């Protein structure tokens, strides 16, 4: 202990003596450790602590069903399905269901638009969440539809809106214009069960029909609208539970003697890995970011190791003297390691400071949407523990090799090295060179990836989406929370379309339920197609969207055949749909889709048009089969108005809101944005990727170039005498320049080759996040390599010039 303290003191003095070295090393480490801590806090908010406030969230699993042959993968549960799973399983200690909803809450006149969840009565129990004030829901709240008009609000909303007033419990409010009572306040940390969202209000599932007037899906077995959340019983594995639930699914199918249940399987997913949750969106990005900061740390460690190696050369005599005084080699190694750990600790300390600052950067990079997005990012104990581990590891990694190297020499060896008869010592440089090659390789990898993301981002902007993005403005309304039924809602749409069309400068107006490329998810359905023999386990399916008249024209989607919807396609007329090219091709296989018929539920509806394919869920995916239904015929209360007008869409916003409020002044209008912004928001992962990777790529490049410069400058300084000899022997300035530049560039080229190889090999890991650019895109590679070699030439130019400035008469003086 005493030795350790003495050595710490010794190390501190040593670092203090060489402040320049210490400053560069600590800064390098602080930046890279700070980056690692930051990304760790982000990733841990997704993977390790996806549901803050939930007890033991690792045992809470998302329950989803998979229909045989449905390409779309997993789907939600219907309420009757849920009841069966809940009552028959023995492997879960509890199974709850939730559905995210947007509601309007009125407590003192002004309605507040809030995001919340419809939840089963056992929701809070299953999650292990207790009210911080009042109560949560109880089994009574689950008993009969419409009876439990109670709600729990979030701690944040309580503070924000009620200023933390304890009398709020028991207060009567109106939710979607219906009377409710606040019965409890959720704990501070709890944000609901949707990863990546901060929700503010919870309502019992029995109140579904009140919250969503005009729809009574509680008892419909085919209506899958709920997400299951189960907690594993202690000692039960995920696989056991999954097998049991799949068996229950089969039982349900057998009892009801329908096709539906047969071959259905159940999937159980950790919160962060639910295929339709926030983790599915953020997970891959986090993975890329984590690898990136890992690389940055690697580069930084290589840099510091190089600095230490350089330092070690200057201390060889000191080491030789210590050895000759009887120190053992491991004493010296330990002393040097104490020094590098002290360096790492300083870097780690400053790194945490940087991270506390980067904590909020993620929130700033999340897309500008209407959803209350937000991760519970925080510098908690776990993050600090991680930082400590990374710091120690880094200290050992960058400290060990130089320590071994520095103490390898014998006394006489140090003397021989110190003699001046022989110039050079480049062989000792090998390790330093290897470190520089590693650094360059890692920064090629970083920069190539950043470049790919940057191109993706550009592509999202210029991609031929099959849409004409310019000049379209969006505004959303929510008729549910304002208590509209389908008759009133349809009338409202009709009138709004007419008024908006009459606004000055407007070319066309339409409505859409799901704006393409939004984050709001998608709906799909399976159906029968007249004249198409679907394989047994592969029923015809497609994405569905409800749209108004002139939808294709307003978005600039080309009509390939037939017609699009007009104002006459309403409930009084025969049901019609428009299909996209993929759907036409797939189910009419060369025949004519227009005039064909599809059975949706019990009704046969006719295809009246074919629209060009446009991506629906994401720009990355090829468009799937999709059909459009007239919203005036099949009412949906949650629509977005699309307005195509001359000039900047923003300049028409006021008029559009005015037109809506002229019809209903109390209606909340939200999500005012241009279609271009909307599509850009959908590219937020690419933006996140290119910004963060770009920043880290530049950091990595700077560190690598610093390393290259340092190694070369050191090598030139070490070889002042050699340069003098060469000059004396007649080497010209150009020859010397070429020699040193060549030496540096050889390292850079080796690094580039290695890095390019790695980037080619690892490219497919990011291909899922790229848009319209191949992970081996030659232009990106060429650009990156060119930029890197240019930077490397600059980094080498300074030492090279210094080599030519060596005064041979001085360098060769015999001292």
């Amino acid at each position, binding site marked *: 202990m005493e030795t350790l303290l003495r050595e710490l003191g010794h190390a501190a003095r040593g670092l203090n003596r060489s402040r320049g070295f210490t400053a560069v090393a600590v800064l390098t480490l602080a930046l890279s450790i700070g980056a690692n801590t930051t990304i760790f806090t982000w990733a841990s908010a997704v993977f390790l602590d996806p549901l803050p406030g939930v007890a033991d969230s690792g045992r809470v699993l998302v329950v989803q069903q998979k229909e045989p042959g449905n390409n779309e993968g997993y789907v939600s549960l219907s309420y009757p399905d849920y009841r069966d799973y809940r009552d028959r399983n023995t492997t879960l200690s509890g199974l709850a269901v939730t559905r995210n909803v947007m509601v309007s809450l009125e407590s003192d006149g002004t309605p507040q638009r809030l995001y919340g969840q419809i939840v089963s009565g056992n929701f809070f129990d299953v999650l292990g969440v207790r009210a911080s004030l009042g109560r949560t829901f109880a089994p009574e709240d689950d008993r009969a539809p419409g009876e439990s008009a109670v709600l729990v609000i979030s701690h944040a909303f309580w503070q924000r809106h009620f200023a933390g007033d304890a009398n709020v419990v028991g207060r009567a409010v109106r939710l979607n214009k219906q009377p409710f009572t606040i019965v409890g306040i959720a704990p501070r940390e709890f944000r609901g069960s949707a990863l990546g969202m901060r929700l503010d209000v919870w309502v019992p599932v029995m109140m579904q029909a009140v919250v969503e007037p005009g729809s009574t899906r509680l008892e419909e077995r085919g209506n899958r609208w709920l997400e299951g959340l189960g907690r594993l019983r202690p000692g039960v594995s995920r696989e056991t539970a999954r097998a049991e639930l799949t068996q229950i699914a089969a039982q349900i199918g057998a009892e009801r003697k329908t096709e539906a249940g047969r071959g259905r399987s159940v999937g159980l997913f950790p919160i962060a890995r639910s295929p339709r949750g926030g983790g599915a969106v953020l997970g891959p990005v986090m993975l890329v970011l984590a690898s990136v900061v890992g690389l940055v740390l690697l580069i930084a460690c290589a840099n510091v190791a190089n600095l230490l190696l350089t330092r070690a050369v200057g201390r060889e005599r000191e080491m030789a003297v210590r050895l000759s005084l009887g120190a053992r080699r491991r004493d010296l190694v330990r002393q040097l390691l104490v020094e590098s750990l002290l360096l790492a600790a300083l870097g780690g300390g400053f790194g945490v400071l940087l991270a506390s600052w980067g904590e909020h950067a993620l929130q700033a990079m999340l897309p500008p949407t209407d959803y209350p997005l937000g991760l519970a990012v925080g510098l908690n104990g776990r993050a600090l523990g991680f930082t400590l581990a990374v710091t120690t590891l880094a200290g050992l990694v960058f400290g060990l090799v130089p320590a071994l190297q520095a103490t390898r020499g014998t006394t006489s060896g140090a003397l*021989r090295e110190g003699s*001046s*008869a*022989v*110039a*050079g*010592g*480049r*062989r000792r440089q090998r390790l330093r060179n290897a470190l520089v090659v590693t650094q360059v390789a890692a920064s090629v990898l970083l920069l190539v990836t950043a470049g790919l993301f940057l191109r993706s981002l550009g592509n999202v902007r210029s991609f031929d989406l099959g849409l004409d993005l310019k000049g379209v403005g969006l505004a959303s309304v929510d008729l549910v929370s304002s208590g509209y039924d389908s008759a009133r809602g349809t009338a409202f749409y009709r009138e709004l379309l007419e008024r908006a069309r009459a606004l000055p400068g407007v070319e066309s107006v339409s409505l859409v339920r799901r704006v393409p490329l939004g984050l709001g998810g998608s709906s799909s359905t399976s159906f029968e197609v007249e004249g198409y023999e679907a394989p047994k386990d592969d029923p015809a399916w497609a994405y569905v969207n409800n749209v108004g008249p002139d939808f294709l024209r307003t978005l600039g989607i080309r009509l390939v055949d037939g017609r699009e919807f007009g104002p006459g396609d309403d409930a009084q007329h025969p049901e019609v749909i428009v299909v996209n090219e993929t759907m036409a091709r797939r189910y009419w296989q060369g025949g004519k889709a227009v005039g064909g018929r599809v059975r949706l539920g019990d009704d046969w509806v006719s295809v009246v048009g074919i629209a060009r394919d446009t991506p629906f869920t994401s720009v990355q995916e090829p468009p799937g089969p999709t059909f459009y239904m007239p919203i005036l015929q099949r009412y949906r209360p949650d629509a977005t108005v699309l307005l195509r007008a001359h000039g900047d869409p923003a300049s028409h916003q006021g008029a559009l809101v005015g037109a809506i409020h002229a019809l209903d002044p109390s209606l909340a209008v939200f999500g005012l944005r241009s279609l271009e912004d909307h599509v850009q928001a959908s590219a937020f992962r690419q933006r996140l990727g290119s910004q963060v990777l770009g920043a880290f790529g530049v950091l990595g490049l700077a560190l690598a170039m610093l390393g290259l410069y340092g190694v070369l400058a050191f090598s030139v300084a070490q070889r002042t*005498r*050699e340069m*003098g*000899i*060469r*000059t*004396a*022997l*007649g*080497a*010209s*300035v*150009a*020859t010397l320049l070429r020699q040193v530049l060549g030496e540096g560039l050889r390292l850079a080229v080796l690094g580039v080759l290695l890095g390019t190889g790695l980037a080619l090999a690892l490219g497919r890991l990011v291909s899922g996040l790229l848009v319209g650019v191949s992970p081996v895109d030659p232009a990106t590679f060429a650009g990156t390599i060119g930029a890197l070699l240019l930077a490397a030439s600059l980094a080498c130019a300074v030492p090279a010039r210094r080599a030519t400035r060596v*005064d*041979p*008469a001085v360098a*060769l*003086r*015999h001292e």
Partner: protein
Amino acid sequence: MNASNDAMIKLEGLTKVFYTDEVETHALAGIHLEILRGEYVAISGPSGCGKSTLLSILGLLDSPSSGTYVLNNTPVQGLDLSQRARIRNREIGFIFQSFNLIGDLNVYENVELPLTYRGMKASERKDRVNAALERVGMAHRSKHLPSQLSGGQQQRVAVARALVGAPSILLADEPTGNLDSKNGDAVMDLMRELHRAGSTICMVTHDPRFARHADRTIHIFDGRVVEESTEAAAAPALA
């Protein structure tokens, strides 16, 4: 005496002043000197009198503060950097007290170095390097690194490197200073042989034994030539 009559080197009023930390050092204070083709000139004088400075200027490693230096009828003042490099490479061969071999290059590569700066063909370089190593008796060590050789052997390699390019003049700055007397003698014998074979040599030494090998000894004191002596006595011994 095998010196012919044309002056290969002609110095007039050569001075060199070093400025360091506001101190002026007059290392050379008006040197007049001629060295003829084929001559063997020794330079001697106490430490710090300016011998090495003079040799650096002769070898175009440094420039005088004033005065003229004419080498092979060419005034060197007007030469640019690349012309000076070319002259160092072709006309001058250096031998240093501390050998100054490059530690990362083996014996062969060290000797080859001046030729590579000429862009000579590899096969020709090989012949020349081997001949030079042969001449100094180091051909059997061509793959060794300098650190694997004794001081005397290293200096012989340095001599080979100096003469491989067939320069007009060899400049040697206390070539035996780092050697024991036996090795020192061997290097001096080598120099004498080279001289007999026609080389022009200018060598700094303060060992009077070696100075006696030279045709002429120039004594420098405080940056000035104070005496010139011809070692006639030594001449019969050479014959």
